[in-house]
C-alpha cells in the first residue's frame, strides 16, 4: 500500500468535516472518492496535500508520515494536488503555468522535456502555449491544471473535481486522459468527484464518503453494481 490513511479526523472550525476516515490506495491504482456536497471529499484531499491540518489520525505515503508536512515540501516527495475549480494562474501564460509546475526541480532541461511530454498528451495546450491562461476554455484550463501537476513529476496525484462545470463530452476526454496518465506514468491517483458514474468507470477502487465518514469501499465495478450506491449516488 503506498497511501495509507488511518482514523483521520479534520475539523473546519467547529465542524467535523472528516470523521475517522481510513483508506488505503495501492501503488499504480486509481481510487475514486465519491459522495455528495459537504461529504468531506475536498477537505480530505486538502489535508493529504498539507493545505489543511488534521486534528488526529495518521497519514502515510510510501511508509513515511506526511501529517503536518507543508504543501511545498510534499511536492518534493512526489505528491501533486490539483485543487478544485481549474487551478491555474489566470495572469500567466500557458507555458508559464506549466513551468510553474516544474519550478521546484530547478533543472531547466528536464522541465523542457516535461513540457514536451505534456503538450504531447494535451496537444491543445501546445497550440495555445503563449496565450494567457484566462483566454482558455474551461476544459483547456482543466487540462492545464492537470498538466501543471504532471510537470512536477508526481507519483501520487490528487485530483479535486476535474469535471466541475464542464460539458459532458469534455468530461469524457478529461476522464480518459486521467485513466491514460495513470497507466503511462505509473501514477497512484486519488480522484474526488461528484460525477460518481464517470469517476467509477475509470477507477480501480471506489470509496464512498458521507458526512465525513467512509460508508463503502470496494472495487469500482462492484460499487457501480451495488443497488444502494446506485440509488444514492448514480441516480438510477
Amino acid at each position, binding site marked *: 500500500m503506498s497511501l495509507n490513511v488511518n482514523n483521520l479526523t479534520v475539523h473546519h472550525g467547529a465542524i467535523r468535516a472528516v470523521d475517522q476516515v481510513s483508506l488505503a490506495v495501492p501503488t499504480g491504482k486509481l481510487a475514486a472518492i465519491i459522495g455528495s456536497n459537504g461529504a468531506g471529499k475536498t477537505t480530505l484531499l486538502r489535508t493529504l496535500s498539507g493545505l489543511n491540518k488534521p486534528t488526529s489520525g495518521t497519514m502515510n505515503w510510501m511508509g513515511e508520515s506526511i501529517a503536518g508536512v507543508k504543501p511545498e515540501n510534499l511536492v518534493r516527495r512526489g505528491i501533486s494536488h490539483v485543487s478544485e475549480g481549474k*487551478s491555474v494562474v489566470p495572469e500567466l501564460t500557458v507555458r*508559464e503555468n506549466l513551468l510553474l509546475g516544474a519550478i521546484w526541480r530547478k533543472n531547466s532541461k528536464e522541465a523542457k522535456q516535461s513540457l514536451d511530454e505534456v503538450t504531447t498528451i494535451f496537444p491543445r495546450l501546445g497550440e495555445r502555449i503563449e496565450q494567457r491562461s484566462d483566454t482558455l476554455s474551461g476544459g483547456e484550463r482543466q487540462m492545464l491544471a492537470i498538466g501543471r501537476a504532471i510537470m512536477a513529476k508526481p507519483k501520487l496525484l490528487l485530483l479535486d473535481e476535474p469535471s466541475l462545470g464542464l460539458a459532458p463530452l469534455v468530461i469524457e476526454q478529461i476522464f480518459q486522459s486521467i485513466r491514460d496518465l495513470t497507466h503511462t506514468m505509473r501514477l497512484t491517483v486519488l480522484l474526488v468527484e461528484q460525477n460518481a458514474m464517470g469517476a467509477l468507470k475509470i477507477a480501480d477502487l471506489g470509496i464512498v464518503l458521507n458526512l465525513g465518514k467512509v460508508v463503502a469501499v470496494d472495487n469500482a465495478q462492484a460499487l457501480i453494481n451495488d443497488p444502494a450506491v446506485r440509488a444514492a449516488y448514480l441516480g438510477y
Partner: protein
Amino acid sequence: MFQAFNTFLIGITAGSIYALMAISIVLVWRSTRVVNFAQAGMALLSTYVGYEVIQQFDSYWLALPLAMISGALVAALIELVFMRLLLKHSSQGAIASIAPIIATLGLLGVIKAFIGFIWGNQDVNIESPLSNVGFSIGSQTLALSPMKLFILIAVSVLLISLTFVFQKTNLGLALRASAHAPEISRLSGIRVDFVRTFGWALAGAAGGAAGMLQTANGNGALAPDSLEFSLLLAFGFIAAVIGGLDSLLGAVVGALLLGLVLAFVLTYVGGSLVFIAAFLLLVGILIVRPAGIISQRAGRRA
C-alpha cells in the same frame, strides 16, 4: 518650443524617480497585499546610509549600491520580524485589512525617530556627484544636466534588469505566481514566505535608489522630516494607483505621466497648482479606468 522640450526633460527625470518609488510600493502590495506608508521612511533610512558611506569613503558611486543593499536588508527584516507576525495574528475581523496599513504608518514614525537619534535632526547634505548645470546648445541651456542624464540611465538600467528578472527567471515566475495565486504556488513547491520577503527586499532596494537619486537631483539636503521624501511617497503612491497598483509596467507609465503633467503645470500654470493637478490626474484616470491604466483583469473568467 524650446521651453516645452525642457519641461518635457524635467518631467521625464522626475517621473523616472517616482517610477522607482511606485515600483517599490507595487512590489510590496503584490507580495503581501499591504499598502506600505513606511516606504518613504525606509527610502530615507537607506539614503542616510548612503550619506554615511559618502562621509567615510567620499564616493557617491559606492554609496548608491550600498544604499540599495541596505534598503533591501531593512525591508526584508521588517517583513520577516514585523509584518509576518502582524499578518499572522490579524487575519480575521473588521480591522484585518486596516491593521497592517496603520502599522506601517507607525513604522514610518519609528524610522524617522531612529534616524533623528543616529544622525540628528539637522539637515545633512549629499553633494551631487555630477554637475547639475545643463548641457548647452548654442546660447541656450538644456534642462538636461550630466546628473539628470545619469538618473535617466540608472533608472532605465534598473527597470530593464527588473523586467528581465520578472519575465525570464524562475525567481520572477515565483514572484508573479505567488502574487496572484499563493495557494497554487505552494502546491507547485514555491516557498511563498521566502518569495514574499524577497519581494519586500526588491522594494527596499528600489526605494533606496529613489532616495539617493532624488536627493542628488534636488538640493542635496536630507533631514528626518524631509518634505522631499514625503512628496516622493505621495507621488509614488499616485503613480502606483494610476498604474493599477498590481502592475509594474503600470507603475512606470503612471509615474512618467505624473512627472510630465506636474512639470507642465509647474512651468505653464504655476507652482501652487501642482498638488491639485496631481489630484485631478488621479481622480480623472480612476473615473475613466477604475482598474488603472494597465488592468490585470482581462480575458474571460469562466
